[in-house]
């Protein structure tokens, strides 16, 4: 039973239509704190041109954007700010963790820098690198578009079910905070010594 339609008419599901619209109009909220932020700016420049993916409208108001790009290290004092901005963003929304610092704390294993923003807000795509090149961020946008096309629904009901914490579990490698790190280190024997 073939429908007789004109050449420019397509039949699809509403979910698919919504996904298709959303993935081509991802408006980023740049949460840029460090060197990754400069790469993020470069991504928007004419050379790399994130506008090709419909993501050029950087919005500095959380109500008007739907993808948060966390670029750079986040310190303890900044976490409540980041969470508040995330909660204020309109739904459905996604998050890209850009660079080693946002994803894991990077080299900053210090008292103030949090070891990965996924411990505090949900993250969809991680970008490796320190800092990542603009091409890598563009890759992340494409990956996020693919994810939206595959998993999205028109009323975003896929998010309702995700009530559990999605970040890393209790990391077995997490060291005792009492363990002292001596700097500058002795690079032959490693830099960690016990307090006792």
């Amino acid at each position, binding site marked *: 039973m073939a429908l007789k339609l004109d050449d420019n008419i397509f039949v699809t599901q509403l979910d698919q239509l919504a996904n298709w619209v959303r993935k081509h109009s991802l408006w980023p909220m740049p949460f840029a704190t460090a060197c990754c932020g400069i790469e993020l700016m470069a991504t928007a420049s004419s050379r790399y041109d994130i506008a090709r993916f419909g993501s050029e409208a950087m919005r500095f108001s959380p109500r008007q954007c739907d993808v948060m790009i966390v670029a750079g290290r986040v310190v*303890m*004092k900044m*976490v*409540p700010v980041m*969470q508040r901005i*995330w*909660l204020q*963003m309109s*739904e459905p*929304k996604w998050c890209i963790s850009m660079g080693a610092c946002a994803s894991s704390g990077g080299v900053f*294993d*210090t*008292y*103030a*820098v*949090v*070891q990965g923003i996924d*411990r*505090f*807000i*949900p993250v969809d795509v991680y970008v490796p690198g320190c800092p990542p090149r603009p091409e890598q961020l563009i890759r992340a946008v494409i990956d996020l578009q693919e994810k939206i096309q595959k998993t999205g629904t028109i009323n975003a009901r896929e*998010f*309702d*079910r*995700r*009530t*559990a*914490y*999605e*970040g890393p579990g209790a990391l077995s490698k997490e*060291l005792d*905070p*009492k*363990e*002292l*790190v001596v*700097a500058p280190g002795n690079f032959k024997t490693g830099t960690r010594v016990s*307090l006792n």
Partner: protein
Amino acid sequence: MPGYLDVLTQKFNGAFTTSEFRDNRRVSVAADKSPDVIFGLLACLKNECGFDMLADLAGIDYLNYPGAADRFAVVYALTNTATGERVFVKAHANDPDPALPSAVPLWEGANWMEREVYDMFGVTFTGHPDLRRILMPDEFTSFPLRKDYPLRGAGERHNFVTVTRAEG
């Protein structure tokens, strides 16, 4: 010997020691005398010796430092804007309650710098108009620049609520 040292010796004889390293002349006050002496000494340098500018104020932790007698020190870098002369005044303080008189009545610029020293080293400044934390969050309980504080923190980094996808 510069003239201001004569003035200081006349007024505070025996309360301080001096030393010189390259072009830096330093005036050091030990912990047992500093709470009583340091404010008068700074006031004398400012009002009588022409050191009208507080260029910097910083804290030091001398824990495990070879030959150190007192644990903490607060360094006042003073400048005479007329002659360009500089002097570094070091006031020591000790555990358990390191405390020094505030320099805010002399220099308004000491306000935030003393808050920073309090935030990072736990040295309290008596008479400070608004001694709150300035760099760390208010609920932080320890002092990160003390030498016995672990570099990776005492577990403060992860004490926040987690936002799940459905909450957003």
